[in-house]
C-alpha cells in the first residue's frame, strides 16, 4: 500500500500547488486525509486563502507617492534627453 500520510511541511506546500491544480490524485487524497486530522494545517489553509485574496487587492491600497523633487527631476531628464 502506498504511503498515505504526509507531513505538515508537505501538506502546506500541497495547498499552494493545489491552487494551480498541480496535485496528482494520490496527492489530493493525501492532502485531504492530512487536513482531516490536522487542525493546524487546516488553519493554515484558511489563512492562506485570506493572504492570497488580500494580496490580489494590495495594489489598490498602496498610497506612497513620489516627492515633488523626484517628479521635477523626471521632467528635467525627459526634456534634456
Amino acid at each position, binding site marked *: 500500500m502506498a504511503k498515505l500520510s504526509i507531513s505538515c511541511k508537505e501538506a502546506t506546500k500541497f495547498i499552494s500547488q493545489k491552487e494551480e491544480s498541480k496535485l496528482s490524485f494520490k496527492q489530493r487524497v493525501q492532502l485531504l486525509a492530512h487536513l482531516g486530522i490536522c487542525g493546524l494545517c487546516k488553519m493554515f489553509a484558511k489563512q492562506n486563502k485570506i*493572504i492570497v485574496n488580500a*494580496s*490580489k487587492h494590495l495594489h489598490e491600497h498602496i498610497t506612497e507617492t513620489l516627492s515633488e523633487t523626484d517628479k521635477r527631476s523626471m521632467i528635467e531628464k525627459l526634456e534634456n534627453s
Partner: protein
Amino acid sequence: MPKADANKWVNDYSDMLYRFALPRVNDAELAKDLVQETFLAAWRNAENFKGEISEKNWLFTILKNKIIDHYRKASTRLTENFSDRATEDNFFDEENHWEKNAYPKDWKADDTKNIETKEFYEVLEKCKAKLKEIQNTVFSMKYFDGFESEEICKELGITPSNYWVLLHRAKLQLRSCLEKNWFIK
C-alpha cells in the same frame, strides 16, 4: 514632443506607475528608477505610439517589461546561493511537523471586515517588504500579475521544485508576520 507633455506625463502617471512598481520590487529607489526609465523609453518612442491603446496602458506595458527585465537579471544573482537557504527553515521540526512556536493560531477572521481596512493593507505591505527579494519576486509574479508557475520558472530560470519552495516560504513568512502584527497582537 512639445514641452508640456513631459509635465503632463509625470504629473498624471508617475505616482500610478510608482505604486505599481514599488510592491513588485520592494525598493523605493529601484521603483523610482524603473518609472524614470519607463518615461524615457516612452519619450524616445513617442512617434511610434499609434494611440491604439491609451497612453496610460502604453506606459504600463513598458513598465511591466522593465520589471520583468529586472526580475530576470536579478534572479541569476538571487538563486546562486539558493541551496544555502534551505537550512534556515524554522517553521517545521525535524519530523516536518509544525515547530511548537510556529503553530498557526486561530485568526478568528471569519468576519472579514477587519481586514478590509487601510491599516491591514499597510501591515500586509510591510510584511511583504520583509520577504527575501527572490521570494517577493515569485510571490508578486504569481499573485499580483497572475502568472502560472511554468511562466515564472521560465522567466526566472528556476526549476519548478525551487519555485514551489520559494512560494511556500514566502507564504509561511507572510502568515507568521501577519499573525504577529495584525491578527494576534
